[in-house]
């Protein structure tokens, strides 16, 4: 373990070059600002800001170089950290489950609300993991199924006055149908052709939601969506006998509804996890993983590729639909704005960052990404900027995801963990 050579002159030159590049990049976009006025555009000069940014780049680059030079060559820190996470996986997963189950006991309404959001993305991540992680089909339009689920519940409940629990299976079913509808035309497509068609599919659904005003309410969306009930008990302050607080004879508090919603989404997420873990052991799940490893070999072995791909899309979509129905009932309001491409990208980023095919990794990634961006809530303007930077940095540091080991779904004698490098990513 020897330190890299320490060369101050080269470092200064490197940092100086970086500062020069930063100057070139930012001279127009930070140094000048376009201000619309009554008589055309005017420019506002921001020289000091530009100087500050360039100096910051210089210092930052220098610090990075010094840090790198001082670091021993060999296993980089993040990798060791992640190996630790993987090794600890046996007790980390139950610990997280315990923490998740007991969260409402020791936290306030805000934390529970963030927990609901994180759990929604954990569920979406696990759902997409079936399509991308197990079957190896790159789906950039997952948000379409989320939207189908949300609008199904919104429209069924406001038009036919169906409750959340009656509509949930319907929402899943409809999303699954859309999964098959998307699946059929893309059966022959591979790789990035598949990616662009799924992206286009997500956009088509969104454009239809915006413009089919008579059915979906257009850009205004659907509002006054009923909240879910616990075996018919409502959560509100009316004091009627069919409310939760009156039935149990306790004082009404708005936290009760949040706790209930939290356990609903936790239950749905755990259902997703359980189903995908069980499916992996079934012939169908094994066929998905075989498809991801080598499609040609699959065909040669007589696996029906059509059915395998379609079921992957359908089952992944079902969970997206469930999550969508939950989203609608949590918000009480849906509009096309919630289903933009950025949501699909976010869920895909969670799956890739967690480590394709790793259930624990996806949950950790959702916690880091959603919980992390919640920390920046006060800096709303910079939130997405920081989020984008974090995506790039995390991919560079850990391209294979947070959890770098995989346990094979089936093995001959003992199931030995292998590196994620050995798992194919699929070409579909």
């Amino acid at each position, binding site marked *: 373990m020897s330190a890299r050579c320490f060369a101050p002159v080269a470092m200064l030159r490197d940092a100086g070059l970086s500062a020069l590049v930063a100057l070139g990049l930012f001279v127009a976009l930070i140094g000048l600002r*376009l201000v619309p006025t009554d008589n055309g555009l005017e420019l506002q000069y921001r020289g000091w800001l530009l100087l500050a940014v360039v100096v910051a780049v210089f210092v930052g680059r220098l610090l990075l170089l010094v840090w790198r030079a001082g670091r021993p060559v060999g296993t980089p820190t993040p990798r060791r950290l992640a190996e630790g996470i993987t090794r600890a996986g046996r007790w980390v997963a139950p610990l997280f489950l315990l923490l998740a189950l007991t969260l409402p006991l020791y936290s306030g309404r805000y934390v529970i609300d963030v927990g609901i959001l994180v759990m929604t993305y954990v569920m979406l991540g696990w759902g997409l993991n079936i399509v991308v992680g197990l079957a190896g089909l790159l789906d950039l339009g997952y948000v379409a199924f989320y939207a189908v689920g949300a609008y199904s519940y919104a429209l069924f409940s406001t038009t036919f006055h169906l409750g959340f629990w009656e509509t949930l299976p319907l929402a899943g079913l409809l999303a699954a149908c859309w999964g098959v509808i998307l699946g059929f035309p893309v059966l022959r497509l591979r790789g990035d052709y598949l990616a662009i068609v799924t992206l286009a599919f997500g956009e088509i659904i969104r454009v239809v939601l915006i413009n089919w005003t008579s059915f979906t309410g257009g850009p205004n969306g659907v509002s006054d969506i009923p909240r879910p009930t616990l075996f018919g008990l409502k959560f509100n302050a009316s004091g009627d006998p069919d409310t939760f607080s009156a039935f149990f004879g306790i004082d009404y508090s708005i936290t009760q509804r949040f706790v209930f919603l939290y356990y609903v989404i936790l239950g749905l997420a755990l259902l997703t996890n359980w189903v995908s873990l069980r499916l992996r052991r079934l012939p169908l799940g094994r066929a998905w993983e075989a498809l991801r490893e080598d499609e040609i070999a699959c065909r040669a072995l007589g696996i029906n590729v059509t059915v395998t791909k379609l079921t992957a899309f359908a089952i992944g979509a079902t969970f997206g639909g469930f999550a969508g129905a939950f989203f609608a009932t949590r918000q009480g309001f849906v509009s096309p704005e919630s289903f933009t491409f950025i949501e699909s990208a976010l869920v895909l980023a969670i799956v890739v960052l967690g480590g394709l095919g790793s259930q624990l990794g996806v949950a950790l990634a959702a916690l880091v990404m959603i919980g992390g961006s919640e920390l920046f809530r006060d800096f709303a303007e910079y939130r997405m900027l920081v989020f984008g930077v974090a995506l790039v940095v995390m991919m560079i540091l850990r391209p294979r995801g947070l959890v770098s080991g995989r346990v094979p779904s089936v093995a001959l004698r003992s199931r030995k963990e292998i590196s994620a490098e050995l798992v194919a990513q699929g070409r579909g």
Partner: protein
Amino acid sequence: MPVAYALQQLINGVTLGMIYGLIAVGYTMVYGIIGMINFAHGDVFMIGAFLSLIGLTLLAGFGITYVPLAIALALIAACGIAALYGWTVERIAYRPLRGSFRLAPLISAIGMSIVLQNFVQVSQGARDLNLQPLIPGGMSLMEQDGFVVQLSWMQVVISVVTLALLALFTWLVTRTPLGRAMRACEQDLKMASLLGIDTDRTISLTFVIGAVLATVAGMLFLLYYGSINFFIGFSAGVKAFTAAVLGGIGSLPGAVLGGLAIGLIESFWSGYASVPYKNVAAFSVLVIVLIFMPSGLLGRADIEKV
């Protein structure tokens, strides 16, 4: 009326298609060489449009009001800076991930796209910025039942600039050492590097050229529509990428052909059916074409050897 109306849609569609084609060339070039979707390319186009607008405003402030000169100077400066953006994006977000598995650069590119979009939103504001038309006027080609077919000078400029640029670019790819290196990298990156081609440099220059073409498209977009915001890169980028896929990704003539196809579909659909659903029409045509020709119009079939 029907002929005149159709002719007008044809003119509008070709103009739009030229802009898509210019952006699509950047996608298809990068895809051909390193096999990744450069999601940030649409945002480089947006940055090009912003740089053009800043340049034009700055020059107007200096009192340079002769339109061709102002546009040329602003375009050169914008291309220079946007080229630096293209280079930096590749250097920071893609080069460390080269040779990594397929999805890592894709996520990194999506991250970079979010960064560029929000950087411009934070630094230049989220409002629409408007520019009064610099190249006004046009000519009427024909008149039928009171419907006048207009060809504006701006549309002529867009077509001429795009065709000239594509001719220059074709010459660059087919006749120069850099173009030869690019084609070699496209065929086999590892073999090209074994034969002494500086692949890092070639890839960097590919991004630079793509960024320059996108900036020209951004300038034309700005002059044609007269209004830009930080979000224009997304929809233009998605449609340009659709054009590249439609034409057969990796094929340069395919990118232009796909761009024209998408432009014409959009314009005819807007003219004869409904404006809000024009994107649905473009994407549906993409899906239908890919069902019957899975590798696009001019793409090579992807043969997998076992």
